[in-house]
């Protein structure tokens, strides 16, 4: 548990230090604006998969908040 926390803090500080120079200008976001370049392209499919794997495995979530609990696990 402590290792995980340390990794997260390190990653966050490395990320924020270099962030100011990484990235694109506002007018270069054409590709990023595409529907299929969104982090969750298909929210219904993602919710269905999250539910299937929550019911059959011991892990859940990661991407965001799930749709809620159920009695399936």
């Amino acid at each position, binding site marked *: 548990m402590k290792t995980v926390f340390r990794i997260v803090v390190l990653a966050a500080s490395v990320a924020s230090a270099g962030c100011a120079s990484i990235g694109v*200008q*506002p*007018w*270069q*976001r*054409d590709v990023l*604006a*595409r529907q299929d370049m969104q982090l969750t392209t298909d929210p219904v499919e993602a919710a269905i998969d999250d539910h299937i794997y929550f019911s059959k495995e011991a892990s859940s979530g990661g991407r965001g908040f799930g749709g809620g609990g159920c009695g399936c696990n």
Partner: protein
Amino acid sequence: MSSRRVSRRVTVTRAGDHWQGRFEAMACPCEVLSEAANAGEARRLTQLAATEAWRIEDKFSRYLAGNVVERINTAAGEPVEVDAETAELIEFATTLNRLSDGRFDISSGALRRAWTFDGSDRVPPPAAIAAALRAVGWHRASWTPPLLRLPADMEIDFGGIGKEYAVDRAVAILRERSPVSCLVNFGGDLAVTSAPGSRRAWTVGIEPADAAATRSPARLSLAAGALATSGDTRRYLLRDGVRYGHILDPTTGWPVPHTPRSVTVAADTCTQAGMLSTLAMLEGEGAEAFLAAQGVRYWCYRDPPDRPGTVANSPSDLPQEGISNA
């Protein structure tokens, strides 16, 4: 009415994920939305558009002294030599006069003197209309570029094309000077220079003319091209149950009956969109049929016939929408 005392200042503010530059020109609020990197860049772009808008206003406004329009209107029958840009505009107006069978006429301003649109049913006497009609009629003008010769009592007014032309000119200048995507909006007549990078398209709301409309504004994504709107807001006459918009038909001297409250058209340039929306209004009852025949995307808002000035909830009141052929 354009007031020369309106300040010529450009203000720039941040709006969401883009910049908004504002100024006053041609008697309406103007704005330039841009994806500039900072306020300074946004100001530079807005200034370019504003400078062009004020230049066109100063040159072609019929309310200002000392410009080419004043020279033409005070020529008292003598030929006037005009510069290249004015010649292009007159050429365009002539073509449109022909294409519209005389309904679009830059000499029709004189008719306005005979009519008062105050929501009443007062109609000028036939003699007054006839007198006004005598001063109208582009076919009576003599145009041999670069010389324009109007009959002594005729006056021209570029108001019907000036704003849309200014939008297109501003867009051309911005395109030339910067890769940044901009939306140029002069009082509801707008065009984009290029597709924005930060999202798929600029989002524009098209509202029915009445603020109390039951239908929420149509939301449009504009990635290229232009929109122009013709509308008669609250200036109309009501007589014998017929609503007369303030658009006058220069071939009859009368306002066009059964005009829509507003017509918005999407086209490749603001000039084209503006002409199509104006011609549609001139068609009165046949506005939708006309627009459908042109194969362009349009939004036509009408009042229900029995309660002019209000917007009903019935399905028949839904705006007519057109789908482009492409």
